[in-house]
């Protein structure tokens, strides 16, 4: 079969594009090297729907940001993922810098951000009593919001799949060859013929681009480290607190998450390794120190985990492309090859608008008809933790498995975990379960529920427990029984 469109990468951008394309009569395929959606930059970021005052006016970034921010709430209702408009504050720590706060406000207004206001310290304290002594003023953006990055990506992907998009996981693109009409995408799982290729490969988008195009691109991953805190301190702040960028750096944010934790980060460090998501002692210290400027007294002993994500920062743009902006266009020397590259912050926010923008480029090329019976909505997995007692009772009476708690920290039940496995594009790894249900996301970090989740996955997938993985191809938990038997003991 010849696909109309092949999207490389099942991050938030790839999934948003897939969902938009599923409105049309197109055979669309998504190829992903990981075993699940949302395995790269989309899983490790701030989880913020930015208001849109950061990007330079006139850029694609600015346009997609403001559009994305405006659409996120409606999308969260259609596709049932966690979103909360909590408002954001850019804190200014030096009277001399208040002018720059004003510049930011003006920039935001040029971009079309509504409701921006400069607050003096008194007004700031009324809105956010926990801010540090040094905060003298702030830019308040009421449209700033928080969103679950996993929830958003999974919702987009599931909805795309329900509307006919195919997904191939564990499939790595080795090469792309230009054919008379379209492309031959060579993967480690076989070849794919396609009319259009959409390159949404995140930090690897340069490698994919360079397989096809003469004028080369280079992406340098920019690592950002984060600390996630226990829900006990999740309400320390109610708004997302940024720091006004200074000569010393872009600053560290402090924000509640949409699930009620507290998140601080990210650092910014250019690295070479495109999978280099290791955290560092230095980075974690930096996050703690700088966060304390915004909010003093965040208790260090309430950290439940730390993680690092990579921003896809373009360091060399192909000839003729704009610098410092998203690179979203049909490649100049490769008709039908569409780059969606350099989607660093605010990429998550942009996703709803970006999907549509790229779909327009693709439909301009292929001129497809709209599809009858596109399903616009999707219902997520019910959450026992967030349900009222009456709703819980109802859920358990429809399926008793909702009465069996597996993850005690986040109160996730067997019923929810089975849902996560059985849904379209269901979870096949424990991280997949975690991102769909929050099992293992709590303060014990899966200490109690891991053996049970592994057991449920193995039973549902009809494999031995030693075949169950955390996320990556070789991320096994248990040694196969025959290997245990063969091996003698070390002390013998």
């Amino acid at each position, binding site marked *: 079969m010849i696909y109309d469109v092949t999207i490389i990468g099942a991050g938030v951008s790839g999934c948003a594009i897939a969902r938009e394309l599923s409105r049309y009569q197109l055979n669309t395929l998504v190829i992903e090297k990981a075993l699940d959606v949302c395995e790269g930059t989309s899983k490790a970021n701030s989880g913020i729907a930015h208001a849109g005052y950061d990007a330079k006016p006139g850029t694609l970034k600015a346009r997609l940001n403001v559009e994305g921010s405006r659409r996120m709430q409606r999308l969260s209702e259609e596709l049932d993922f966690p979103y909360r408009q909590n408002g954001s504050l850019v804190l200014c720590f030096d009277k001399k810098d208040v002018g720059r706060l004003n510049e930011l406000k003006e920039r935001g207004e040029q971009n079309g951000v509504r409701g921006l206001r400069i607050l003096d310290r008194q007004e700031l304290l009324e809105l956010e009593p926990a801010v540090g002594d040094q905060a003298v003023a702030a830019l308040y953006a009421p449209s700033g919001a928080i969103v679950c990055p996993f929830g958003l990506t999974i919702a987009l992907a599931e909805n795309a799949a329900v509307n006919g998009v195919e997904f191939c996981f564990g499939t790595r693109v080795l090469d792309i060859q230009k054919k008379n009409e379209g492309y031959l995408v060579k993967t480690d799982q076989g070849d794919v013929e396609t009319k259009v290729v959409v390159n949404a490969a995140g930090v690897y988008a340069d490698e994919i681009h360079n397989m096809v195009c003469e004028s080369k691109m280079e992406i340098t991953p920019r690592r950002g480290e984060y600390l996630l805190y226990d829900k006990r301190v999740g309400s320390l702040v109610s708004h997302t607190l940024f720091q006004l960028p200074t000569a010393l750096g872009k600053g560290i944010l402090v924000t509640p998450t949409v699930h009620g934790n507290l998140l601080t980060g990210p650092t910014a460090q250019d690295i070479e390794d495109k999978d280099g998501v290791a955290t560092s002692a230095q980075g974690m210290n930096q996050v703690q120190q700088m966060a304390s400027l915004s909010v003093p007294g965040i208790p260090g002993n309430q950290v439940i985990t730390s993680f690092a994500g990579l921003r896809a920062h373009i360091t060399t743009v192909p000839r003729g492309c704009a610098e410092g902006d998203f690179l979203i266009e049909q490649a100049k020397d490769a008709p039908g090859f569409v780059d969606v590259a350099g989607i660093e912050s605010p990429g998550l926010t942009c996703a709803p608008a970006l999907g549509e923008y790229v779909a327009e480029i693709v439909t301009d090329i292929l001129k497809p008809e709209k599809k009858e019976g596109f399903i616009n909505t999707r219902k997520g997995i019910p959450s026992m933790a967030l349900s009222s*007692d009456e709703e819980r009772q109802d859920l358990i009476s429809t399926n008793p498995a909702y009465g069996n708690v597996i993850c005690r920290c986040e109160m996730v039940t067997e019923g929810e975990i089975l849902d996560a496995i059985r849904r379209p594009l269901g979870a096949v790894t424990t991280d997949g379960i975690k991102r769909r249900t929050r099992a293992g996301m709590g303060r014990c970090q899966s200490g109690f529920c891991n053996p049970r989740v592994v057991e449920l996955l193995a039973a549902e997938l009809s494999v031995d*427990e030693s075949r169950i993985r955390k996320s990556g191809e070789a991320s096994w938990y*248990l040694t196969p029984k025959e290997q245990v038997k063969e091996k003698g003991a070390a002390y013998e």
Partner: protein
Amino acid sequence: MNKRKELVIIGGGPAGMAAAIAAYEKGIRDILILERDKELGGILNQCIHNGFGLHTFKEELTGPEYAARYVDMVAARQIPSLLHTMVVGVQSGNPCVVTAMNKEMGLFRIEAAAVVLAMGCRERSRGAMNIPGYRPSGIYSAGTAQRYVNIEGRMPGREVVILGSGDIGLIMARRMTLQGARVKLVAEIMPYSGGLRRNIVQCLDDYGIPLKLNHTVTQIHGKERVEGVTISRVDENLKPIAGSEEFVRCDTVLLSCGLIPENELTLDAGAKMDDVTQGPVVNDRLETTARGIFACGNVLHVHDLVDNVSGEAEKAGEFAAEYILKGHSDWGAAVRPKIPQKTKCTLPEGRDAGSQLICIGCPVGCLITVKRNEDESLDITGNTCKKGEAYVRSEMTAPVRTITSVIRVQGGEGKVIPVKTAQEIPKGRIAACMKEIRQATVKAPIRVGDVMIENVADTGICVVATGNMDISK
């Protein structure tokens, strides 16, 4: 089910069971134990090693044996329990209200004159310790690994580094070794071990596993599965010393870095918390500031020995009974439970293992000095009881150990049954004994004390079950 009870006990581990029994003995008959796991016994069921019960039962038992005795006592009094049942909320008052759920009954409320909290504790996770590096599979808290090995009958890895020398870490070092894994080292950030001295001897020294004091893990390597760790020496402020890094190849990291009382429900009930114990504030009757709600065991503060948990829980059960029978009195003053001074366990530096022995007979771990006279008689000093002398005599001539492990089960409700050698066997026969244990399969049903293997490794000693298992339904 009657949704009104005199006493509801949350948690069916050693604390909950002891509280239930004590309340029963004080005349309370309408008791219900709520347990989230598939059986009573709590974490003891996976603590298959011995060393429990010296105070309570005046004999050395394994965890499942200790639990089984309490399960029997609960059964003898016909105290009911609900298994697979999660409590999701507790409200103080007259009556108190406990909200719980399970598969069969859905969500339900129980009114109770009094409630005893006995939920136990959890382990500190990797994230809570800010260990830098990747987040691959193969990093487990020691208790999770213990569950895999001792309950699920599965091996979570082959080459192991253990961070933290708490007792669970030491016990798991031996356990993983006996099951065929290679434990590279145990790293401890403090200049002393957090575990018992006897465990250093019988879990590490016996198997040649190095204990690296003043060391910690400063990097976890491996993007998918653990591929190794960097360990570093730390200075007196516990900060890693640059230049002291050493790479250790391994596929598994076990963390034994402390326990935290599990007080979600306690907080939910509005009880005041104590920052020092990380448990609720209680008065001299173990009642929290949420009236009618009592606390005991590791939910109140982390205990060293289960015997102490049982003792404290008995009192909580009695106080709860008194509260139910005699009604309220003034709450009184807060009394912090006596937290045993954490043993700062070190083996004397430069100890000559040939003449200075650590007794493994009980948790005290006496340092005993022995001198062999010309006539081959022994001068033994430093022991505080007769056991010490006997231990040294045996250790100097023919050292012996009790071996605990699990054997695979066919047709049972569980996958493996915990076992021990009925008596100590010669140290030299451990490997042969384990080989037979690993290869054996037994059939359910099984009762504590049933012989699983006769004359194991030609020692003349049999391997017996230390737990019960019914036929699978």
